[in-house]
């Protein structure tokens, strides 16, 4: 399927099926469920970044009349589970905000009051807050038994480095020897947060004899079930997780923070329990994106051929080893370039910060920022246009990646050409304005999705699929079912059932939903087509091979007879039972998505303030099922990346305490901060998906970092290599130049 096809139903800008509820306020999110008898829980959190917990005394809190349950680490049934100590700390508080105890009480105010009565004896320890501090010879240890994995020789003593990895292709030494120009730079990025507007929250009820229930917003309710069941020693069949509508995730809601604690408190109190994180708890105690320090070295010949690429990447993992997205960072950094000699070494380092969680193309923004900045500098050094430089070395079909496979058909070249031809790229710049271009690459994943399509007696269908909808995917499921069944889109409703009513689907993430769950929808729809033919054949006394299914109608090709879906479904009881299509798959063949962005930024050189004046986001979608929501992914990723580049960072004081756990001082872009974002959809179909779909959700956050980084550098004539490009940092560079 490599040529463009005309589709009847997909590719339309339909109104999404959950849209009416969302614009009227009827849609129910994590904090919107109240149950009879429900009580409120709050979490006591460490005021220290690093401390030994000598004792916890909850007796005064338990004595308050309105308090119904208190829990600490010892109340977790499966304490040996490695996830337990981030639900409730055991021997050490490892970051500012680390959960120490939970209290459930009849009112929110009583729960708050009870927290103040819990006495914790801390031995405060010096906090480790940066890669340098963590790796210093004299560094205090965060985990006394952490021996670095992946070193050539296993170390004999512990450190704060959890692991090392390396990937090698060709011979970089030889490659650098061939180069006419070699540039080497170090780049730094801060700790950042996904910034979803909806705080984590859940309402749960523990039932001793039947189903326990969790209502929460999550990117993966099966993941919530598995994690919670493991911690509480419950069978999956005894725990039902309902995915509410979700107010943003971007990877941060693939992790479980509150639900196990809430369920323990519910069990202890005998009541349904609601917990909501405050905004400052979200920043302190959920899962931010890794801060990094990345060194990159690239060599090229005068004619623009890149001969060697080398990187040494250091990623913060937060307080628990192995959480950093080091692998993806190493795998993606050089993939936009077809260069025979590439070497990447990476380190996962623990620091006294919250455990890192996925953030939209995890690991790739940080590493690709470093590479793309250096590519732009190298282009300048060689006197080659930055897009032409990329075109000359662009990855394409059959390019051997650093991490193993060869690329199938991909759209990087098409994106670069679209960038070159874009209105923005052809426009002139004025004084104090700079332009930056950047590529981006993300693999996207497939994985397990389970779909049921139930055909109703009136010929309409209900799609049950287990992928929480974080971006409008239900609309795409309707269209894909419609296309396969050749019936109008609004024939189908799309619902995300709880874990008891559908088989496991992997978490919504990795840009997998439209690809993998979409594939499962198509498989289920195809299953229904087969059954429709069988049922019609039975009525006409012919074989199914003698029935054609066209435009929603079964046609007897060996005689007379037409039956609509409604007619077949109305007769289903008599022809063998109700008609249900199944698509339980492990989707393979996810197609990577390349992107190219262009940022134009004007800098007020008296103050260092940046103004994004124009922005274009170009990305390969394979096939855009709903162009409006595909554009939305490009624009949303761009906005997050712009924030990451210009203003967003976690600010810690000298004691390791987070100083800006709120939207006032963790500065995400506002409506007035951004221009319109021109979104251009390129379509190089992914032949492994029935309609050519590639995941699109993640790649878009990658290019803005170097696009903005380069634009600001050009505007002020100084190479900037640390994010964010906040006004104080930019002004300092200007004044010191």
């Amino acid at each position, binding site marked *: 399927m490599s040529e463009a096809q005309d589709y009847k139903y997909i590719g339309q800008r339909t109104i999404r099926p959950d849209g009416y509820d969302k614009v009227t306020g009827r849609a129910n999110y994590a904090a919107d469920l109240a149950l009879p008898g429900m009580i409120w829980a709050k979490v006591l959190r460490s005021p220290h970044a690093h401390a030994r917990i000598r004792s916890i005394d909850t007796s005064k809190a338990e004595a308050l009349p309105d308090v119904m349950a208190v829990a600490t680490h010892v109340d977790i049934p499966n304490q040996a589970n490695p996830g337990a100590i981030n639900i409730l700390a055991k021997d050490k508080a490892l970051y500012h905000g680390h959960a120490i105890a939970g209290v459930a009480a009849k009112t929110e105010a009583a729960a708050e009051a009870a927290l103040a009565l819990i006495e914790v004896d801390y031995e405060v320890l010096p906090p480790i807050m940066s890669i340098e501090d963590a790796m210093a010879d004299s560094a205090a240890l965060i985990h006394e038994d952490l021996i670095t994995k992946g070193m050539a020789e296993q170390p004999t003593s512990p450190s704060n480095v959890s692991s090392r990895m390396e990937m090698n292709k060709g011979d970089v030494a030889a490659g650098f020897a061939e180069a006419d120009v070699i540039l080497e730079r170090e780049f730094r990025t801060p700790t950042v947060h996904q910034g979803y507007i909806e705080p984590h929250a859940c309402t749960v009820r523990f039932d001793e004899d039947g189903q326990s229930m969790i209502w929460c917003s999550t990117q993966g309710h099966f993941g919530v079930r598995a994690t919670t069941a493991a911690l509480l020693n419950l069978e999956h069949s005894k725990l039902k997780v309902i995915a509410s509508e979700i107010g943003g995730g971007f990877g941060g809601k693939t992790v479980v923070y509150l639900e196990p604690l809430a369920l323990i408190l519910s069990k202890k109190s005998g009541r349904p329990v609601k917990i909501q994180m405050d905004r400052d708890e979200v920043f302190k105690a959920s899962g931010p994106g890794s801060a990094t320090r990345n060194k990159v070295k690239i060599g090229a010949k005068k004619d623009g051929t890149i001969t060697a690429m080398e990187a040494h990447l250091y990623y913060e993992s937060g307080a628990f080893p192995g959480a950093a997205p080091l692998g993806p960072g190493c795998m993606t950094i050089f993939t936009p370039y077809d260069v025979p000699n590439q070497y990447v070494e990476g380190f996962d380092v623990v620091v006294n910060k919250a455990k890192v969680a996925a953030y939209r193309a995890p690991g790739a923004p940080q590493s690709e920022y470093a590479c793309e900045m250096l590519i732009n500098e190298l282009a300048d050094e060689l006197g080659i246009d930055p897009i032409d430089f990329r075109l000359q070395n662009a990855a394409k079909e059959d390019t051997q990646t650093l991490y193993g496979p060869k690329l199938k058909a991909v759209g990087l070249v098409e994106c670069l050409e679209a960038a070159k031809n874009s209105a923005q790229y052809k426009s002139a710049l004025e004084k104090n304005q700079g332009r930056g271009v950047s590529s981006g690459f993300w693999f996207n994943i497939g994985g397990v999705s389970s779909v049921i399509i139930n055909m109703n007696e009136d010929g309409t269908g209900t799609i049950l699929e287990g992928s929480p909808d974080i971006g409008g995917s239900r609309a795409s499921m309707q269209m894909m079912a419609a296309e396969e069944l050749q019936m109008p889109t609004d024939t189908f409703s799309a619902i995300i059932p709880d874990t008891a009513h559908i088989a496991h689907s992997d978490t919504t993430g990795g840009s997998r939903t439209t690809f993998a769950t979409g594939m499962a929808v198509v498989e289920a729809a195809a299953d229904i087509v087969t059954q429709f033919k069988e049922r019609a054949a039975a009525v006409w006394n012919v074989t199914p091979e003698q029935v054609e299914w066209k435009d929603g109608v079964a046609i007897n090709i060996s005689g007379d007879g037409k039956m609509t879906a409604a007619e077949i479904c109305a007769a289903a009881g008599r022809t063998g039972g109700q008609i249900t299509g199944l698509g339980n798959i492990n989707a393979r063949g996810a197609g990577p998505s390349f992107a190219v962005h262009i940022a134009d930024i004007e800098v007020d050189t008296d103050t260092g*303030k940046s103004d994004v004046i124009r922005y274009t986001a170009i990305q390969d979608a394979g096939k855009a099922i709903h162009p409006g929501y595909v554009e939305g992914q490009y624009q949303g990723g761009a906005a997050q990346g712009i924030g990451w580049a210009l203003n967003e960072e976690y600010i810690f004081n000298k004691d390791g305490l987070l100083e800006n756990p709120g939207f006032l001082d963790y500065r995400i872009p506002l409506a007035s901060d951004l221009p319109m974002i021109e979104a251009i959809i390129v379509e190089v179909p992914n032949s492994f998906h029935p309609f050519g779909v590639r995941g699109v959700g993640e790649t878009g956050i990658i290019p803005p970092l170097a696009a903005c980084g380069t634009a600001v550098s050009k505007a002020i004539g100084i190479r900037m290599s640390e994010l964010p490009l906040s006004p104080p940092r930019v002004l*300092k560079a200007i004044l010191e130049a």
Partner: protein
Amino acid sequence: MVSVVFEAPDSIEGAVNLLANSKIKTNVLAGGTDLIIQMQGFKEERLVVDVKKIPSMMQATLSDDGLSLGPSVPCAELTAREDIKDVYPGLVESAYLIGSTQVQGRCSVGGNLCNSSPAADTIPALIANNAQCVIVGLNGERSVAAEDFVAGVGQNIMEKGELLAKINIPRPAANTSDAYLRFIPRTEMDIAVAGAGVSITLDADGTCTAARVVIGAVAITALLVPDAAAALIGTKLDDGALQAAADAASAASKPITDRRGTVEFRTHVVGVLVKRAAKIAAQRAGV
């Protein structure tokens, strides 16, 4: 949230009695856009006195003498007053900069002043305009110049039992106008990292005959900088004079490094803002 006793008197006298006679700590509630956030951290019981039912607190009256401003007038209402904007464009623009549209629906100049943050937007503009703060207590009324109102970070000179009842801003002299500028990293929503409120009086040939230059967010209180004004007086606000004023402002500033800016950044930028605000004020004065 802590336990709160809530009262909403309908007179200044009623409010003062409540504040003066309270056995527990008191807070005055105007727009609530600072107080309600602060309440989340209160540890003991409070008496909260809502003053929005007191008519004089909610009225803004412009006369030949000047502006008699009720401290609790919502900024959204104040900034919609074209007549007040004509006379005090800088003061109105400082009020307009506080928070979002939603915050504007509630916040007030009086609340901004009494919250006494070093970074408050309206305080430099109030000082630049010679605002007088009328404070009422059990012992009667007193008037304090805006530049003497704030004592420290979140502290002002009002005693227990006193209420800010009115802010009086005299009519500017002929050919006088003002401007307020602040620096924030985004385009809205942020707390000022540096601010400058400037009032300029020009004579017939465009020479500055009087000036008040006030800097904000660069010391524990807003600062009136006579040296910066002196650098402008007698000049036509040429580049040299403006730079001298900027340098004087930078020299007078005593900023800190925090999550919003560094010492060096604030020191430099406040000078830039003084220059820019002075130019705007002069353009407005010259019409």
